[in-house]
């Protein structure tokens, strides 16, 4: 299924309305990306590590991680991804409605690749996703996955 898209994004978001909104915004932005949604850090890690029942999950080109997740929050998520040699090269962008300095600082200290405040305005959100696509999928060069198992 990954063949039809040029890139894949893994969205870690517990609120289905929010996840649907992101999917809509991606559509409105005309992004040619496949979106996978995990509703918890645990599920996201299982998908990234292809643990059952996600043996056929695709390796994303970018992870969008909500900061406020139940149980193991976004902070733990980004820490775990960045400490895993198989996963740490995948760019992780924090998506949060918080503008609080500690949230932003913590995210970067845990080696998040970016921190984006979720815009309240839908059109702005569409613009933000378009800019993310241009930067992460067109501007920068990323290394291939360290493990050749990943297709």
């Amino acid at each position, binding site marked *: 299924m990954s063949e039809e898209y040029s890139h894949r994004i893994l969205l870690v978001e517990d*609120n289905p*309305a*929010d996840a649907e*909104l992101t999917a*809509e915004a991606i559509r*409105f932005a005309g992004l040619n990306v496949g979106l996978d949604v995990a509703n918890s850090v645990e599920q996201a890690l299982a998908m990234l590590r292809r643990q059952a029942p996600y043996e056929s999950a695709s390796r994303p080109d970018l992870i969008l991680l909500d900061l*406020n997740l139940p149980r193991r929050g976004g902070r733990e998520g980004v820490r775990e991804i960045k400490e895993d040699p198989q996963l740490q090269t995948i760019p992780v962008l924090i998506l949060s*409605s*918080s*503008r*609080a300095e500690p949230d932003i600082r913590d995210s970067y200290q845990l080696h998040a690749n970016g921190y984006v405040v*979720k*815009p*309240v*305005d*839908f*059109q702005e*959100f569409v613009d933000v996703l378009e800019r993310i696509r241009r930067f992460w999928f067109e501007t920068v060069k990323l290394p291939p996955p360290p493990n050749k198992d990943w297709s």
Partner: protein
Amino acid sequence: MLNTMQSKGKSEAAPGRSALVNVQNKALQILGDLQKDVPPEQGEQIAEAVQALKEHAEGLRHFDDTLEDQTHILRSILNSIPTGVVVASKTGEYLLINPAAAPYTNIVQEEQRDRPEPYGVFMLDTTTPYPAEEMPLARAIRGEAATKIELFVRHESFPAGRWLLCDAVPLTAENGALRGGIAVYNDITERKKAAQALARRAEALSRSNQELEQFAYVASHDLQEPLRMVASYVQLLELKYSKKMGEEADQYIAYIVDGAKRMHDLIQDLLAFSRAGKGNMTFVPVHCDAVVQAALENLKTAVEDSKAKVTVDKLPIITGDPSQLRQLFQNLVENALKYRGDARPEIHIRAEKEDSEWVIQVRDNGIGMDPAYTKRIFRIFQRLHEDRQQYSGSGIGLAIAKKIVERHGGRIWCTSQPGEGSTFAFAMPTFGQ
């Protein structure tokens, strides 16, 4: 000679006196008898000796009276002061206990000379018994000075316990030899209670402040999410179905979007307010000139758009947090720009030193206001104008300005008249500059 001071009579105060008088009288009697049996020549000598002895006796009586007088004064002082005084010999025997010290040394009866039963004396935690050998008086007897020692004492006659501040010094003889120790006790229970009450209040206040800040943060942050859903989905509805629902529906959608955005702004402002003057404030000398320039730089567009003329006098160096002071000036100038009149806006910033404060003024030629409102405008979300198009914003700028000034130990106020502009002034302590 020294004893408990409570009940000693005056006659006992100088026990040597009557014996000395007896000796003198005896001597005079012998001399008188002798005078009868000796030749006149020797008799004269004896008469001189008698005279000398009488003068000596007179002198002695005078000295004695003075001593007694002094002792009486000292005793009166010791009996009347609220400070407890205890003197003990090298062996720990009490030589003096004044009335103020009596309740604490448990010497009720004068005859009781032995060291009292170990008292309920405790360390600062009020439960750990104070080691007997570490008691201030015990240390003084060993030749050590023990100053400013706080003791907690509890006894059946004052079960709630009392706080004592104790100073003890060794007592030495004229030749420097150690004789014992002197301990002085002051009851500091009231002071201690007041300090404890104050500490408790401060703690409660700090806790409630923290809770409030936590609340503001959580509320603002958690309110954002559902608000974003409402705003975004309504916009999505508009994008997808605007032409299909009719004009009225489009208008409703516009209202919803506007309301959601305004609520978003309010929440952002609430967050900004809860953050202002909080946490890591760095107090350094701040050049107000530089801070005002930085504030004006941030307002460049607004200043240019309104063609405002902003003049700034020489401003002082004050002690404070640079970024918060920048915010303060920025909010005041922004406010002056926003409430401009029809004339070209003129804003003047000046400073004046008054006693131990700098008073800094931001004066404008704007629309001004009824003096009745000059206090209310500093409250959070207070607005005086219903025209949201012309005077946008939620009314947080001045509330933040007030918070910043107050966190710096200053005051802020406003003087104004409708149509005659407003002057916002704040006073900051000069910290001895």
